[in-house]
């Protein structure tokens, strides 16, 4: 279930869209089948198993619920399913990694493959957060500052802005 939560966060899922007409007719059928299944189970339980009770005191020394009995069963009588499960887990691991991997990760990439994605462009000389555009700047003063900066350089433009 933790995996499910991770995937929900990873996928940025939006609210489920309701399809107006598609497969709507299946809902009453599903509810009907569910009612039938519940009724069947209730019928069987009241008919046959109504008096059955779980009482651990009736079965002393059975070893049910002990770690030792589970381990003994797992490594003796049910050793084959246990080992098959390990193979299954390995296959699931490899399959999940193969499926969830990006398709282009395996290919070798040269530096030119990044294209014009701004995240991969070489860093400019101006560090982030030190742009000369400040809040409260009007278009006119911005244009004037840009012209001033072209003439006198960026440091002088900063000084000029401080004086203004």
């Amino acid at each position: 279930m933790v995996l499910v939560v991770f995937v929900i966060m990873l996928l940025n899922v939006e609210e489920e869209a309701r399809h107006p007409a598609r497969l709507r007719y299946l809902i009453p059928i599903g509810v009907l089948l569910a009612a039938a299944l519940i009724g069947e189970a209730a019928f069987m339980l009241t008919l046959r198993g109504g008096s059955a009770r779980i009482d651990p005191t009736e079965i002393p020394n059975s070893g049910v619920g002990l770690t030792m009995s589970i381990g003994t069963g797992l490594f003796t009588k049910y050793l084959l399913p246990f080992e098959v499960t390990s193979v299954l887990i390995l296959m699931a691991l490899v399959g999940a990694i193969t499926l969830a991997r990006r398709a282009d990760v395996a290919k070798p990439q040269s530096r030119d493959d990044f294209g014009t994605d701004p995240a991969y462009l070489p860093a400019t000389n101006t560090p982030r957060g030190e742009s000369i555009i400040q809040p409260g700047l009007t278009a006119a003063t911005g244009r004037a500052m840009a012209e001033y900066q072209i003439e006198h350089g960026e440091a002088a433009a900063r000084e000029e802005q401080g004086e203004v």
Partner: protein
Amino acid sequence: MIPLSWYLTLSAVLFTLGVVGVITKRNAISMFMCIELMLNAVNLTFVSFSSYFGDVTGQLFVFIVMTVAAAEAAVGLGIIIAIFRNRETLDVDDASILKL
């Protein structure tokens, strides 16, 4: 003591909720969680009968079912991620062909 039938009834209700969810839901993750619900309902039945009969086999099978459920969750969520990456949606009606 709580009668065995209560456990079995709860298990049947959980399983039915899972079936209804798989039938009615169109979101892949919701369907996935409904499948998990069905598996856990079966686990509850296993444990109930194991305790009722005083036999440890049911608990062993719960172990194995949990492992299979974990493997299924890993592969299924990998498939969901791949589909979402290709189609930008989780609706299973949009993924009705095998080709990605």
